[in-house]
């Protein structure tokens, strides 16, 4: 009796050790559990860098499995984590999916992008708790592929490899295996306020504006005119709180990045320094606003009827945000044209953000999960319906001949914006910005931009410091 009790106690303790050993991804000072505050995040849909992956990297022997001819329809419960659920719900696609697959029970968990990543990281590390399907931006994808938490879906995506924008596959591939299915691409354009341009005595015709912003230097001249005539800021470019996004866009359009194709860090290369100095011209004299992107004042100045900024350089997915929660009150006041080239005659296209859907390797129901992904992202009809609603340009190239691409968009002054998105998407060069160390690199480079912008350091010195830190931490040359 006595010994039994004792055994029980000892057993409990041993059990606790076992539980602890398999359950806790312990890392931190154990006294403080950092609770994740509900950072209200704007869910920047991501798009991704370019690169060269492609069908060629896949073993040519692989026979494309004949598409979705499934003998027995998958069934069971699947869970989705992500933030772009509205694109699938408001377009009725979720309902249609349920009609086609009545035996699949779909549970959508609405997380902001940062919550998705944090929970996914912990679930992968813990070995339990991950969803079946998860939305991951290209900027973060390679990092998760590196964690070995995503399911190898090479045989499933095989038929789609030649059909998607080639650069979208770069972050999804590791050792010739594919871990995610591209959703949308992020062609960067210039969104501008027609009312502000008119108030400054400028034309608001997209072709005229395109000529006015043909290069970053010309864009600066236009900004100066607007500032002089109307007193309004040209766009938002924070100095002390810069997040590096616009800088990354400017690097991307030149095919530059944080590293080169050999994996050598190029953060402090002369071209990168020159790019930062070019952006720096907008601070001196000050023709831009200092609001931090994705904060309330930033939304306010995009939505303001009379105190607005004149423009914003951002990817096509910005369309749905402008139309709905950021600037819903400004319908008809916006125009769309190409972004500025770095120098005369150079490329006027870059990528920012863009998402993918992946299956977690913990999924108990990978067939149902793939059925969902295939339904949403692999079908022209689904992709087009989401595109019409959100401006998420499908990565699926077979949609590009649809009539939708010739329809005018009333929010943008009845301009045919989708042709511009498409033309830009075709020009996006390969660049090396995203990757397994993107978060770390973006962090150091943002700080460098802040130091340069606030006059604490020259562009070259600030980027040199950032490059040294990145080299030390990543071990990249």
């Amino acid at each position, binding site marked *: 009796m006595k010994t039994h009790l004792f055994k029980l106690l000892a057993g409990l303790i041993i059990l606790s*050790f076992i539980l602890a050993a398999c359950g806790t991804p*312990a890392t*931190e*000072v154990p006294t403080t559990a950092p609770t994740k*505050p509900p950072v209200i995040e704007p869910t920047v849909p991501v798009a991704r860098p370019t690169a060269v992956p492609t069908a060629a990297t896949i073993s040519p022997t692989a026979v494309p499995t004949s598409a979705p001819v499934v003998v027995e329809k998958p069934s069971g419960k699947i869970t989705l984590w992500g933030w772009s659920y509205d694109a699938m719900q408001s377009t009725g696609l979720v309902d249609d999916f349920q009609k086609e697959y009545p035996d699949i029970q779909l549970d959508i968990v609405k997380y902001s992008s940062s919550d998705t990543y944090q929970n996914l990281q912990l679930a992968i590390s813990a070995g339990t708790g991950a969803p079946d399907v998860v939305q991951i931006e290209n900027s973060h994808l390679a990092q998760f592929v590196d964690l070995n938490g995503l399911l190898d879906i090479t045989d499933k995506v095989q038929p789609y490899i030649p059909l998607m924008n080639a650069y979208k596959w770069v972050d999804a591939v590791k050792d010739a295996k594919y871990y995610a299915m591209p959703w949308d691409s992020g062609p960067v354009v210039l969104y501008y306020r027609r009312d502000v341009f008119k108030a400054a005595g400028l034309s608001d015709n997209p072709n005229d504006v395109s000529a006015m912003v043909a290069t970053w230097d010309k864009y600066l001249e236009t900004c100066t005119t607007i500032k002089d005539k109307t007193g309004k800021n040209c766009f938002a470019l924070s100095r002390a709180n810069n997040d590096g996004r616009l800088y990354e866009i400017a690097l991307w359009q030149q095919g530059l990045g944080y590293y080169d194709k050999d994996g050598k860090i190029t953060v402090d290369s002369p071209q990168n320094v020159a790019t930062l100095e070019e952006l720096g011209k907008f601070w001196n004299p000050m023709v831009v606003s200092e609001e931090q992107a994705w*904060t309330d004042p930033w939304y306010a100045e995009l939505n303001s009827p009379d105190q607005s900024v004149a423009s914003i350089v951002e990817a096509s997915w910005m369309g749905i945000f402008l139309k709905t929660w950021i600037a819903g009150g400004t319908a008809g006041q916006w125009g769309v044209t190409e972004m500025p080239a770095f120098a005369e005659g150079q490329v006027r296209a870059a990528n920012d953000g863009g998402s993918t859907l992946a299956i977690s390797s913990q999924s108990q129901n990978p067939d149902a999960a793939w059925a969902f992904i295939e339904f949403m992202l692999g079908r022209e009809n689904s992709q087009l319906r989401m595109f019409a609603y959100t401006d998420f340009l499908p990565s699926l190239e077979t949609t590009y001949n649809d009539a939708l691409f010739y329809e005018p968009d009333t929010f943008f002054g009845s301009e045919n914006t989708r042709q511009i998105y498409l033309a830009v998407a075709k020009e996006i060069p390969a660049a090396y910005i995203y990757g397994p160390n993107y978060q770390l690199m973006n962090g150091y480079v943002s700080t460098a931009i802040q130091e340069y912008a606030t006059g604490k350091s020259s562009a070259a010195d600030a980027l040199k410091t950032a490059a040294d*830190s990145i080299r030390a931490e990543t071990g990249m040359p």
Partner: protein
Amino acid sequence: MNTIKLRKREAISTKTKRKEFWHEILRGRWPYTFISPFYILFLIFGAFPLVFSFILSFTSWKGTGPLIFNNFANYKLILRDKVFWQSMENGLILFFMYVPFQTLLACVLAVILNSKRVRGFKFFRTVIFMPYISSMIAAGFVFQLLFGSRNGLFNSILGLFSIPAIPWLDTMWGARVALCALIVWAWLGYNMVIILAGLQTISSELTEAAMIDGANPVQAFFLITIPLLQPVILFCVVTSTIGSFNLFGELMSLFHATGGEGPLNATITPLLSVFEQAFHNFKLGYASTQAYVYFILIFVVALLQLRLFNREID
């Protein structure tokens, strides 16, 4: 012959000792059973992470896969890690910016509330304590609006007096001032209540006697009350010191757009740095290294504070 006997005796004695030990435990089985939940939880959530993260600090573990020891590379890296040392510096700066001020203010408020002349003691105590129990996330957003550089309330008020706007959240020092305001607002009540409790253990006869001897209230406060409160104040200062290096919720709400770092890393704290390495960069090994280096440093600081104060008390 003798030695054999001795050894035998020793063997017997350890055997009996062990027997006695188990016997003792069995006799106390019920008490031990009842206190076991704490130890079980402590082993899982306290001891295990402590030991495991120490092991991790020598590896380049990402959260999955085998532990690969990397030859002290993490400890070498941390010496050159500007962000980590900036975070230690920030903790130090923040400590000097708000801890003395907050502690003094908490003392003054506690003394006022403790005075018999103040009516509605419970009401004021509750009001001052209330921020402590309110949501830091909500408070952070409100302070963002108050300190907004362009449309913030404080700058609007300055504007009424034709004083140029101060870019609070766009400069390193402005951001720190805004952060300290938030911290003092949130933590003043907590410190005050602790000091108030200490104050109520001090007999009022002491100050009354001093007054009769000719001391004015200010002298009585600094020469009688404060010295007697020293152990309580010490507690407040030590916890605030650790708190200023451990800021997290305050940063995540007030500077949410930059992930808590603030302009030019002005407000990044060691805890936030550890968090970013672990949960943004997935470098759990290096994050553990930072946590341990940070732990050792803060441990030394706390020890120094205890020494310093205790000497004065002696």
